[in-house]
Each structure stands twice: as structure tokens, then as C-alpha cells.
């Protein structure tokens, strides 16, 4: 037999891959052929060396079985974890957006100016406005007066201010005249 065949049979024999008959025949053959026996021993030595080296390097696997047992638990794989994180960010952003939208709608000024422009003259006509002279010049008085007369705050404030000044001017000229 060729060297390669002998070596292969020797490996199979060491690995327990030969049946009983083949095993006994192979042993008998090696006993009769010194050269074949030498080839077989050569590869068997490497086989045992490799087996021992891998066995020595992986010996710690026996000690670690408890750790492995504890670590077996259902967890999401990395890519699913990343996808879930992104989904959470998107949902959070959507919730924040929806909340902000609802809030801004609740405080928005209704499209009232058009209605006010049409109804206020009627209100002003049906209900006489307050006495401008007695309104004073406070901010809220000016605002309330503007609401009743249908004029803008600033416009009405100017009127109130002007009225006050006119009164002051009249009093001043009257005083001068008396003097």
C-alpha cells in the first residue's frame, strides 16, 4: 500500500472510524510491514500531539459551563436592539411633535378679526361707549374701551390721550384768559 493510504487508515483507526474487521486487518498488516508501521506511527504521533494540544488549550471549557448556563437567556440580537432604539426615538419625537401641535392650537388667536370688524360697529351703535374722559389712561381701560367702540387699542389710546390733552389745553387757555 502507498504511504498516503497507510496514513489515512492510521488516522481512521485512531479516530475510531474503522470497523472491527478493518481494524484487525490493519493491525495485522502493520505487524508484517515495518515500513508501513513506521509511516503509521509518524502520523499517529502528530494525531496525538494535536489532540493533546487542543485538549490542553480548551481544558478551561469544562470549568466555564456554569457561566454559560447562567448566561443563556433570551435577549434581542444587536441589530434588533439598535432598530428598537431608533423606533423609540421616532415614537418619542412624534409624541413631542403632537403635544407641541396641540398646545400651539389651544393658544392660537382665532380668526376673529374679520368677525370683530363686522360686529363691533353694531355693538358700538346699540350700546353707547363709556365716557372717554372718565376712562383714564390705564392700559386695561384703553383696551376695554377699544373693544366696545370697535377701534384698535393703539388708535383708541391715542384718542384718549388726545382728549385728555385737549381738556388740559382748554383748561390752560381758559386760565390764561381769566388772568
Amino acid at each position, binding site marked *: 500500500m502507498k504511504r498516503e493510504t497507510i496514513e489515512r487508515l492510521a488516522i481512521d483507526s485512531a479516530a475510531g472510524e474503522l470497523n472491527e474487521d478493518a481494524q484487525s486487518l490493519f493491525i495485522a498488516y502493520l505487524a508484517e510491514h515495518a515500513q508501513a508501521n513506521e509511516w503509521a506511527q509518524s*502520523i499517529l504521533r502528530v494525531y496525538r500531539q494535536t489532540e*493533546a494540544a487542543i485538549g490542553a488549550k480548551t481544558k478551561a471549557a469544562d470549568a466555564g459551563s456554569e457561566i454559560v448556563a447562567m448566561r443563556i437567556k433570551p435577549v434581542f440580537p444587536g441589530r434588533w436592539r439598535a432598530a428598537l432604539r431608533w423606533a423609540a426615538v421616532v415614537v418619542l419625537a412624534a409624541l413631542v411633535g403632537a403635544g407641541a401641535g396641540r398646545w400651539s392650537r389651544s393658544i392660537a388667536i382665532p380668526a376673529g378679526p374679520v368677525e370683530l370688524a363686522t360686529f363691533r360697529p353694531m355693538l358700538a351703535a346699540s350700546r353707547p361707549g363709556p365716557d372717554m374722559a372718565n376712562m383714564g389712561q390705564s392700559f386695561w381701560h384703553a383696551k376695554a374701551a377699544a373693544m366696545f367702540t370697535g377701534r384698535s387699542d393703539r388708535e383708541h389710546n391715542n384718542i384718549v390721550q388726545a382728549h385728555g390733552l385737549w381738556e388740559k389745553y382748554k383748561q390752560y387757555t381758559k386760565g390764561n384768559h381769566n388772568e
Partner: protein
Amino acid sequence: MAGDVTSEFQEFWTQTAQKLRAYMFCSCENWADADDMVQDCYLRALRGWGQFDGKASRQAWLYGIARRTCIDWFRRRKRDGLTVRIESVDEPSQVDAAEPAVDNVEKVWDVVKSLSPEQSQVIHLRFAAGLSYAQIAQALGIPVGTVRSRLHRGLEGIRERVGRWENET
């Protein structure tokens, strides 16, 4: 039914965990990574437990999953730009006086790593996982004859390189 699967899987795990851990260590040379891969492998096995067709042995089926787990792990490592080979500093193996000298163990270990991936895979499945030729063939999806020749060529390569190293020293 669920209880049966759980107990069946638990028993399977008890029988195979140590060898699988040793095989995974051969692939990544780091116990922490090996444990992660073992966990990933068993999770995959648990998910596919019901889909096992029974054509191969359960053990061969598990090592088929283990092989894919290793491939995915190496791809992920490569994608993340991490070093693939990490020297093991934790849990050093304790070598008895009766076992081969440490130098020889390290040399043979290094030589096995330097073999082609196909040859070293067969050697790891044989010596670390303790699979038979038929189981290795089922796990790798190759004929038994190919397993035999890869093992032989691998051992030849080890003999040649270790012999060269012994002559040099």
C-alpha cells in the same frame, strides 16, 4: 408540549455545552467571546428546535449552527473594525506534567491556526468538539471522503511545520 421542549433542550444543552464552548474558543481564542457565541448559537438552536428535520444528528445540526454563528461573528467583528484574533489572557489552561510540554502545545496550536480554514475547521470539530467523520460531514455539508482528506492533509501540514520547528530548535 412547551415543557417537553424545554426539558429536551436543557438535556441537549447539558450534553453539548462544554464541547461547543471548546469549539468556539478554537475559533476566537477568547473565552468571553466564546461564551457570547455559545449563547448566540443556543438561542438560534432554540428558535429552530422545531424545524430540525432529523436527517442529521442533533449534534451535527448544532455544529452547523455553530459554524454559521462563527461566520456571522467574524463578519460583525470585521465590520466593526475590531481585531479578530485576541490572545487569551483569562482562564489559562493548566497543563499537567503528563501532558505535552507547553512549548509544544503552543507550537501545535499556532500551526493549526496557520492551516487553511477548511482544514483547521475539520481539526477543531474532530479534536475540540469530538465529532465523528459523519457528524463533521453533516455539520459542514460536505462528503465524508472530503472530511477524511482534509483531516489527513491538515495533520500532514502540522507534521511538516512542527518537524521543521523541532529541527530548528
